[in-house]
């Protein structure tokens, strides 16, 4: 089952994973990201049978996140058909894991998810965000961690701007622009998409490489083909 919350709380079921995967693939999504949000806080790993089932039906790239704590976990997920693995809390606990995975699979497989929140004019990293009771500050400045993960071999950063998550008031352009300036690797914006114009803004102003959204697609509020036409009309280079 796929669930979605608001600011990482109050998750509700939005649909069957294979139906959603097929639907998004047919509608022209460029990549799918699956988060097993309860994996890290519960100290268990992803149930991986579903990866195989998703891999069999879709023909666009997909990334799996959640509870991947070792090179062996990553290998299992990739062997089941994922194209990339995304790690978040385990990388904070053991940053060397990033290097170990990049060496084994290549940087292009290793995505670092960063959950970041604004506090007193600066940005800070949070961990175990899948469970409101376990979420805690990681005691790192976001921009420090961005530089750090690149040096360690990360191939892509997905920046989840927690203040914006699920509230549909636009991506956090200010924060994303700062992270963009600090990264030479692809940057994916996450958190806050509410209108088609929000996507145009984040590509134009924060110059991100991709924009991730969940709520507006799950609710069918923004149909992907309409979004792509809108982006194309705004001169954002996109596959249509």
């Amino acid at each position, binding site marked *: 089952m796929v669930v979605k919350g608001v600011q990482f709380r109050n998750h509700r079921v939005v649909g069957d994973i294979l139906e959603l995967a097929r639907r998004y*693939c047919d509608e022209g999504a*460029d990549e799918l990201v699956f988060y097993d949000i309860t994996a890290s806080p519960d100290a268990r790993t992803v149930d991986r049978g579903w990866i*195989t089932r998703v*891999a*069999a039906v879709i*023909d*666009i*790239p997909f990334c799996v996140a959640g509870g991947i704590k070792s090179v062996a976990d*990553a*290998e299992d997920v*990739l*062997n*089941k*058909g*994922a*194209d*990339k693995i995304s790690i978040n809390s385990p990388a904070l606990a053991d940053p060397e894991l990033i290097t170990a995975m990049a*060496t*084994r*699979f*290549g*940087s*292009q*497989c290793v995505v670092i998810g960063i959950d970041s929140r604004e506090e007193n004019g600066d940005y800070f990293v949070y961990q175990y965000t899948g469970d409101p009771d376990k979420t805690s500050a990681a005691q790192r400045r976001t921009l420090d961690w961005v530089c750090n993960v690149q040096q360690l071999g990360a*191939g*892509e950063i997905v920046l989840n701007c927690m203040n914006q998550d699920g509230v549909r008031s636009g991506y956090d352009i200010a924060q994303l622009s700062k992270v963009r300036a600090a*990264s*030479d*690797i*692809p*940057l994916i914006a996450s958190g806050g998409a509410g209108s088609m114009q929000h996507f145009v803004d984040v590509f134009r102003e924060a*110059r991100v*490489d*991709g924009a991730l959204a969940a709520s507006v697609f799950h609710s069918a509020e923004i149909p992907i083909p309409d979004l792509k036409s809108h982006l194309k009309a705004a001169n954002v280079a996109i*596959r249509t």
Partner: protein
Amino acid sequence: MGSVAIIDSGGANIASLLYAFDRLDTRAELTTNADMIRSASRVVLPGVGAARDAMERLQDTGLVDVIRNLTQPVLGICLGMQLLCDASEEDDVQCLGIIPGIAGRLPVAEDYPVPNMGWCQTHYAGHSGLLDGIDDGSYFYYLHSYAVPRTSNTLATAQHATEFSAVIGKDNFVGAQFHPERSSAAGARLLRNFVDKGV
């Protein structure tokens, strides 16, 4: 139509390729068995990971000369394409030397982060039956830090900070820098062409 042998070069991420052939109703098998590879009607050399590891794996399994001597259509994908070429600057490793060319690191430039991870428009630079029915300028999915510059063997190109070979070929060997198995309808068509027509 016979079978497709997918050479197990040790990298992870072979499942997506197997499923892509499943969706085409084509039997594909992952193997390091030389006889099975020689007798297959089509051979795929995939690859995710580092060039040195993959070449060592091919040497350890005794497949270097087996691959060089194949006469049926052979398709290298991503790192597998680079392995078909002369060498890679990644770890400074000698590759199979079947198609002329050396893979170098993609340069970083503003708006062109490395790795190149995403959909790039791909343009014809020569003729290949692999691209039949696929529009010039179609998008394919790329996931790489190294690339082979355009050469006289280049059949299609894509652009990052610099232009690079998207498809390259010589005789019965062809390589694609992108992942056809994750490139939606255009990628499925390319694999269909490979199965039905060869290179």
